């Protein structure tokens, strides 16, 4: 596994908020078909912290991420990325915000098959019309261990390698926050562990902020903190999780689900 070369200072840990929601509410449909996906959720994600969001299916964990990342509209309350309030932003501003301040990692990798690995990594900067920072890019590429594969197209890479390209793409533009949606869902356990390791390293060594949605307790154990959602509400907040602790907590939901 790659380690950060000696001499590179590790990023200082701060407690400033990278993203924050206050009474965030999301409602789908109207009247009979009205569904409250998020019910006044207030949560803060700190800078240089790796947070996992967990919860059973339908708990609203993906919706929370989508709303915070400016991918979905907000019905009520507030969501902020850094100092920027998302409510009321027009599509153009939201797009710019995503482009400049947010990185994404998807379950299905979502790389462009027509572009090489390197082109995929620099895509967000190409969209912004910015030149990538060469030194940073090299460091990111080296961190995720893709140096020899930059000219390859996604079709020539394994699933794990593709997701590493996606991680590099998210890191390369130095966003304020990275949202990862089930990043290991399509990977075998070894590749998944690798990718999670990179995410953790990027937080510890590069000072990146990462928010990850997952339903896998093992994946969540890589995080510094786990936030549990159920029925659109935050029901628990666990610092320094381990896989066993998380699993225990999740069993509680299942039991509750059964008794209901």
């Amino acid at each position: 596994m790659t380690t950060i070369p000696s001499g590179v200072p590790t990023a200082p840990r701060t407690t400033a908020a990278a993203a924050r929601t206050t009474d965030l509410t999301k409602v789908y449909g109207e009247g009979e078909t009205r569904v409250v996906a998020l019910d006044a959720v207030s949560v803060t994600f700190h800078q240089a912290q790796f947070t996992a969001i967990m919860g059973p299916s339908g708990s609203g964990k993906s919706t929370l991420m989508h709303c915070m990342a400016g991918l979905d509209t907000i019905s009520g309350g507030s969501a902020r990325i850094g100092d920027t309030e998302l409510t009321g932003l027009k599509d153009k501003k939201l797009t710019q915000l995503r482009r400049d301040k947010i990185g994404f990692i998807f379950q299905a990798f979502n790389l462009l098959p027509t572009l090489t690995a390197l082109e995929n990594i620099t895509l967000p900067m190409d969209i912004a019309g910015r030149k990538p920072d060469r030194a940073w890019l090299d460091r990111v590429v080296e961190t995720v261990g893709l140096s020899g594969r930059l000219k390859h197209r996604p079709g020539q890479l394994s699933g794990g390698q593709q997701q590493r390209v996606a991680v590099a793409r998210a890191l390369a533009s130095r966003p304020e926050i990275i949202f990862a949606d089930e990043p290991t869902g399509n990977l075998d356990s070894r590749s998944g562990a690798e990718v999670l390791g990179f995410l953790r390293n990027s937080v510890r060594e590069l000072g990146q902020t990462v928010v990850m949605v997952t339903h896998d307790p093992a994946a969540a154990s890589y995080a510094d903190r786990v936030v549990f959602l159920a029925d659109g509400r935050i029901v628990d907040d666990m610092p320094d999780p381990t896989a066993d602790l998380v699993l225990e907590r999740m069993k509680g939901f299942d039991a509750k689900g059964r008794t209901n």
Partner: protein
Amino acid sequence: MLRTALRNVLAHKARLLMTVLAVMLGVAFVSGTLVFTSTISDALRSSAREGYADVDVAIQPNSDGSGLGDRPALDQRLLDKAAHVPGAASATGTVTGFTAIADRHGKLIGTGFSTRGGNYYPGADGKDARYPMRDGAAPHGADQIALDSRTADEAGFKVGDTVRLSFDGPVHETRLTGIFTTTDGAVSAGGSLALFDNATAQKLLLAPGKYNEIHVKAAPGTSQDALETEIHKVLPAKGAEATTGRQLADDEAEQIAKSMESMQTALLGFAGIALFVGIFLIANTFTMLVAQRTKELALLRAVGASRRQVTRSVLIEAVVVGAVAAVTGLAAGIGIGAAMRALMNGTGATVPDGPLVVDVSTVVTSLVVGIGVTVLAAWLPGRRAAKIPPVAAMNSVHATATTKSLVVRNTIGALFAGAGIAAVLAATGMSDGKFVMGLGAVLLLVGVFVLTPLLSRPLIALAAPLLRTFGISGKLARENAVRNPRRTAATASALMVGLTLITGLTVIGTSVQKGIDKMAVDSLKADYVVSMAGLTPLSPEVAQKLGGLDEVTAISPLRSSEAEIGGNTTYLTGVNGKDFGKLTRLDFASGSLGDLAGGGLIADEDTAKEKGWKVGSRVPVTFEDGKKETLTVSGVYHGNEMIHQVIVDNGVLSTHQKHATDMQVMLKTKDGATDATKQTLIDALGKNPALTVEDKKDVSAGISQSIDLLLNMLYALLGMAVIVAVLGVVNTLAMSVFERSQEIGMLRAIGLDRTGVKRMVRLESLVISLFGGVLGIGLGVFFGWAAGELISASLATYELVLPWGRMGIFLALAALVGVVAALWPARRAAKLNMLTALKAE
């Protein structure tokens, strides 16, 4: 399987929309053509029947090859005899001839071909039943006429007005005494008719006492055939024949059917091109549908469907799509047919009225064509569907439609294209290479179709520098355009077909125009050419009048006379031998104009070779009056399209011609061609509306005008193929947007704004269209050049002209196609819901 197929069609309504539209347009073109032609044909037939309703037997002069000499025309004596044969009720003599009518401003009414004069032939009651008078009375005497009501109304003439007429040159001022209505076919088809009293009509339009035709009406109880037998007994031995009215109507109907058939064939040819272009679109759509359904089809195979059943399910889908498109296309075609007739009636009214005719054969043809084309195009994708292995259903990562290596395809394409080019090049060197060239053109086209996937990468790479200026959108557009080479190729090929034809025809058209123009101007030294508007003969008076002017320094009328040389009918051109050299520039192979004025003849090379003449050969000629004379060949010249006959002096001809008429008059003036000179000439001719006085520039303009008209008609007809190609581009883009929705969702998520997405789709569209455009224009130029090599064999002054301006316009048109086609898909892509797109598997 039928139910599965139907469900699939319903499930993919939106994606099949463009396919249905393309087939519909093609079918509408076909059925519109059929409805229009059968409607017109029907109307013309019924008008022909009506025209002969009052004619039981017609006596006409015949051309039974009785040779030269005085032909017995139909005269009063024959008419009287015919009127009194047993079973005849009455007989009418008809006289018709070209009659130019000037409107109130002195301009010619009609085009010159459609204005006629005729005789008012009163029957026993003193009236001509053919022409009932609406206003005023029938004409009497040399300077009275009656006009058909439409012409009179449109020109604003009233009874008592003065109307200026011309027949063969000089202007006649006449008084309008009557306005009549008529069912005459030519008039209801938009022509004009002026009537004179019988004697005047004969004198002006034919010859005193003679008729063009004699129409005999049968007494009640006498059949047409019986009357015809009786009439035969009174006919002169030769020069006239009798035919029943029914026969004449049938003959005319057949004639009409024949001329309609060739028009129909031409129009259907263009419809065929549009349908052919549609095939690319249909094949693309079905290929995509099959690819998207790989799993589903594999599942069908896994649960026991045979390959044939899978293919059949795709074909059934094609039949349903084709049937829907054919039915709507047929309805649209009937509408087009009706609209075309309304349009023609609204503008020129050259079509007689009649009901809209929708034959059973029209309906059947439309349905067969629509369904046939769709099934044909879906056949390959259907076979590909059958090849999907059942295991693909289980395999979650089965790649959609394996992209077979293009090596085999490229080899075949290269062979075809190579053979095609070789054949075309070989044909340019042949004396009669039409067939070989056509074959080569088809081979080359097929080769290029097969090779387009290969060509797409390098050609689209050429556009890279331009695309780079659009940043990431341009880069992605370029990558997307070459991503599915087969689909890009099929889309571009569809556009290529139309542009190849348009460019090729334009190159040939402009080159021919230049060639004819050069020949006309080069071979002509005359400043002016005077001719009749309808290209009818001119009275010699015109040349006499012009010859008398001080400004005119050289003049020659051109006469035509039939003669027999060595047993073959040959047309002699009579000229003024003295001035002919000053008016034309003939290129002599041997000899010279020399003794033309003194009674010699000159001949073009082809005729001389055929007859074995050399300078000094003595040639026995039998003239139109049957007399013989021996002429000496004075020179042999290189003939061209303008002048290519045996030429003699008018002095030689005049002794053998009873009524000399000129085809045109060429003349040279003191000051050359100037506006003042032209005005002098026009004034000298009495401001005759029927005469055209043209200088070289006018001749050139006339040539380019007629070629432009032809090209514009072809553009309009090929427009349908281009429209179908536009649908094809729309289809491809819509498919791409649909298939790449997850990618587009990701791009939007990581920060590409709507404008960027739109631009990406538009640029892809532009790149594909320009690819097709460049291929089409390139091929068109090549075919145009090659066809020109063949044409130059018969048109010596032919010269390849590359119409850069127009080619630029065509390329711009291709770009426009790209932009327009992308409008809807780009909007769809920009409006795509990011989350749904990302969540999709």
